C-alpha cells in the first residue's frame, strides 16, 4: 500500500510539473494581454511534434529537439500576438475566438504533416530511480527538474529584470503601464513568446511519455482551464499551487477510482470555485 501511495505521489509530482508549465504560460498571456488563448493546448501539441520531427524522424539529439520545440512554439506565440491579439486588443472575446481559429489550423497542420495516428517515440533517456519500491524514470525526472528550473527562472525574470517588472506593471494596469513609457507591443510580444514557449517545452519534454496525437491539446486545455480558474485568473503563483493541487487530486482519484470520475471531480471543483469565489482560491482582484 505504501508503495502505491508513494508511486502515485511521484506520478502526481510529474503531472504537476508539466501542468504548471502549461498553466503558467496561459496565465502570463492572460495577465499581460487580457485574452484567453484557447490554442494553448495546441501550442503544447506543436512542442511535442517538434520532437517527433527532429528527434524521431531526423535523429537530432533529444535536448536539441526540446530546445527547438521551445523556440519554435515561442515563435508561433509571437505570430499569434502579431496577427491576432494585437489587432484585437480591444476585443478580448474576438481574441479568444480567433485563437480557436488558430487552434484548428495548428491541429490540421499536424494531421497533414504527421497523420492522425499516435506518434511513438523511442525513449531518449533510459534508466530509473527506485525509491522504496516506487519508480521514477529519468525521463519523468527530467520533466520535473526542467519545470522547477524554468519556473524559478521565470520568477527571477519577473522580479529582477526591468522587462519583468514592466510585464507585471502591465498585468496590473495596461493604461498606467503605457503611461510609464513601457512599450506595450514589446511587452506583449515577450509575454507571448514566454507563455507559448512554456507550453511548447512542456510538450517537447513529455512527448516520449505520452505518444502525441494531433488532438492531444483538447484534454490539456481543459486541464489548464481548471487550474487557472482554481488558482485565480491572472495569478501566477496561484496557477502553480492549483496545478499541484489538481495533479494530486486527479492522479489519486484516477489510481484509486477511475479516470472519468477524476475528470468529473476536477471540473466540479472548478465550477465550485467559479460559483463561490470566481477570483480563484488565491486570487484577490478581478479582471474581465
Amino acid at each position: 500500500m505504501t508503495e502505491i501511495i508513494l508511486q502515485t505521489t511521484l506520478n502526481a509530482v510529474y503531472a504537476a510539473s508539466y501542468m504548471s508549465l502549461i498553466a503558467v504560460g496561459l496565465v502570463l498571456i492572460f495577465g499581460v494581454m487580457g485574452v484567453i488563448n484557447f490554442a494553448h493546448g495546441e501550442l503544447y501539441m506543436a512542442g511535442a511534434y517538434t520532437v517527433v520531427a527532429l528527434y524521431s524522424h531526423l535523429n537530432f539529439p533529444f535536448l536539441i529537439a526540446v530546445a527547438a520545440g521551445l523556440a519554435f512554439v515561442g515563435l508561433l506565440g509571437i505570430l499569434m500576438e502579431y496577427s491576432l491579439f494585437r489587432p484585437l486588443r480591444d476585443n478580448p472575446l474576438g481574441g479568444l475566438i480567433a485563437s480557436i481559429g488558430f487552434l484548428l489550423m495548428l491541429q490540421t497542420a499536424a494531421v497533414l504533416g504527421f497523420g492522425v495516428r499516435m506518434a511513438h517515440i523511442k525513449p531518449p533517456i533510459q534508466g530509473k530511480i527506485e525509491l522504496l519500491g516506487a519508480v521514477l524514470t529519468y525521463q519523468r525526472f527530467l520533466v520535473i527538474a526542467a519545470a522547477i528550473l524554468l519556473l524559478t527562472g521565470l520568477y527571477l525574470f519577473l522580479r529582477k529584470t526591468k522587462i519583468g517588472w514592466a510585464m507585471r506593471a502591465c498585468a496590473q494596469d495596461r493604461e498606467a503601464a503605457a503611461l510609464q513609457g513601457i512599450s506595450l507591443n514589446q511587452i506583449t510580444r515577450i509575454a507571448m513568446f514566454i507563455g507559448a514557449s512554456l507550453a511548447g517545452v512542456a510538450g517537447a519534454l513529455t512527448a516520449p511519455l505520452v505518444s502525441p496525437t494531433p488532438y492531444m491539446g483538447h484534454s490539456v486545455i481543459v486541464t489548464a482551464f481548471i487550474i487557472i480558474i482554481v488558482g485565480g485568473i491572472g495569478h501566477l503563483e496561484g496557477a502553480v499551487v492549483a496545478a499541484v493541487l489538481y495533479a494530486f487530486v486527479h492522479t489519486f482519484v484516477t489510481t484509486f477510482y477511475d479516470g472519468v470520475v477524476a475528470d468529473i471531480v476536477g471540473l466540479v471543483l472548478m465550477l465550485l470555485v467559479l460559483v463561490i469565489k470566481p477570483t480563484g482560491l488565491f486570487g484577490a482582484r478581478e479582471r474581465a
Partner: protein
Amino acid sequence: MREDISKISKWGLGLVFLAALLVLPQVLSYSQREIAVLLVINVLLVASYRLMTLTGEWSLGHVVIMGVGAYASALFAKRLGVPVPVSMFLGASTAGLAAAVLSFPLFRMKGFYFLIGSFAAGEVIRLVWKYFSTPFGGPKGIKLIPGFPDIGPISMFEPENYYYLCLAVVSLSLFILYRIEQSRIGLTFHAIHWQDKLAESVGVGTFRYRMLAFVLASFFAGLSGALYAHYIGTINPTRFDVEEMVFVLIWAIVGGTNTFFGPIIGVVALTIINEIILRSLGFDSARPMIYGALLILSVLFLPKGLEGVVQKAGRIFKARKAPEPTVRREQNA
C-alpha cells in the same frame, strides 16, 4: 408608401425563398438530401444559439445542451416506448429544464467566467454520459434509436420526407424565435446586454430574463438534437464535443450575430462551401484549417459577419437615398 413597397417585396422574396426550399430535395442527389436534412437541423441550432447571445452571454455548452435533447428524446422513445413525436418534445423540454437548473450556478458568472463555466458544465454532462453505461450507453452512446413513425404511406426514413418534416418543425421554431426577438422580450434581452443595472432600476429581473433566454435557447437546441437523434439513429458523447461547438461559433461569427438572419446565413453559406466546393476539390482533411482561417479572417475583417456584407450590398443596391444612422437597431414598433 415606400415602406409598403418594401413590405411587398419582402413578402415576395419570402415566397420565392419558400418555394426554393420546397423544391430543393427534387434537384439534389440522395446524399445531398441527407446533407440538406442536417443543414436544416443546424439552422435551428445556430438560430437558438443567437437567442442566447442576445443577453450578452456566450455559452460554450450549447452543443452539449443539444445533446441533452438528443439523449433524452432517444431514451424516452427507446426505453419508455414514448411515441417519437412526443419524445422529441419531451427531449426539448428536458434540455430547457437542464438549462433552468444550470442557470443557478452559471448566472452567478458573467462574460469570460460564464464562457468557461458553461464549458465546464457541458464537459461534466458529457463525462456523465461517458461514465454511466445505463442508461446512457457509455462512450459508445445509444444505438438503434427508433425513427420517426411513417405518416400513412410516407416513409420518414427517406431523407426527402424527413427534410420536409424538419423544414416544417424548424420553420415553426424560427418563427417563434423571431417573434420572441421582435417582442418586448427580445428588447429586454438587448437591454440587459447593454446596461443591466439600468434595466434592473426600472424593474427588469435580470436573472429571470437571463434564465429565460437560456431556457428558450436550450429548448430549441434540444429540439434540434432530437430531430438529429431520430434521423441518424445513433448518438454518442463525442458527437456533442467542443469541436462541434466550435462549428456553431464559426457559423454564428462568420454569419454575424447582429441580426436574426446572420447566423443562418453563416451556416448555410459555410455548409454550401463545405459540401460543394471543398468536397468536390477533395480537400477533406484540410477542411478544419480552412474553417479556422475563415473564423480568423471574419473576426479580423468582418466584425459584422457575412450579414454585414449582405446589408452593405443591399444599401449600395438601393442607391444612396437617405443616409442611415450608424447605430440603429432593427425595429418594427
